[in-house]
């Protein structure tokens, strides 16, 4: 079976999305949640670039991916800063313990 480049990129996109979602579903650690989110966003970014390349508009796809990179980095920065503060104040990164705060 001849596997084309398009198919390989799409498998990578699906794999990244699946692994990221699995991480979001099973983890209870606040920092590891951000790792899962990062993996999912990488899949989305790769898809944007691929669609741009395959539809004959590479610049548009790349500029959209640039915006996603910036937004993703800011999400990581704020998420990590929040995790550090939560650890300082609550003393844990376990989501199960943190969610008790609202009660």
């Amino acid at each position, binding site marked *: 079976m001849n596997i084309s480049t398009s198919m390989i990129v799409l498998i990578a996109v699906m794999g990244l999305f699946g692994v990221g979602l699995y991480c979001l579903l099973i983890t209870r650690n606040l920092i590891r949640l951000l790792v899962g989110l990062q993996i999912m966003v990488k899949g989305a970014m790769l898809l944007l670039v691929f669609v741009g390349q395959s539809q004959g508009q590479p*610049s548009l796809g790349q500029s959209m991916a640039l915006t996603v990179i910036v937004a993703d980095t800011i999400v990581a920065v704020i998420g990590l800063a929040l995790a550090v503060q939560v650890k300082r104040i609550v003393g844990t990164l376990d989501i199960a313990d943190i969610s008790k705060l609202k009660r």
Partner: protein
Amino acid sequence: MWHFIILVGILFCSYQAVRDKRLLVSAIWLAGTSALVSIMMYLIGAYQIAVIELSVGAGLVTVLFVFAINIAGDEPIPNLSFIPKWLARIFAVMAILLIGWQLLPLLDFPINLNQDEGFQQLVWENRKADLYLQVVMIFAGVISMLRLLTDEYQIRILHKEVQE
């Protein structure tokens, strides 16, 4: 051939990033995933964004993760998820199948490696609003991080100094 090797690398690194028990090692695997994704982008002809992803995704974000993990510490959290792992696996596989179904029509389009010259023009002229938004987001992120990482004690001292 290279594409296939990189695909296997991406999937392996991302799975290890999720599976490894130590957060610091997870962050390193995430950096590996990022680097391989950027190589994949380079191979499909997105040269500019591949370089940006390599420097920001594999560089800056990894440094931030290592910094945060060093401050917060790598505490062992019981390996009990909110939902059973088998159910999470089913959800992940269903999501993969749904995305695959949505992406199936894209298989008919071959990747075009030819570059158009419009990336700079598109980013700096046609999408100025996005660019300004990105600058605002970066400033907001930096200020939020500084505010969040500042100790409450230091803030009180600053407030006192201002009042005096």
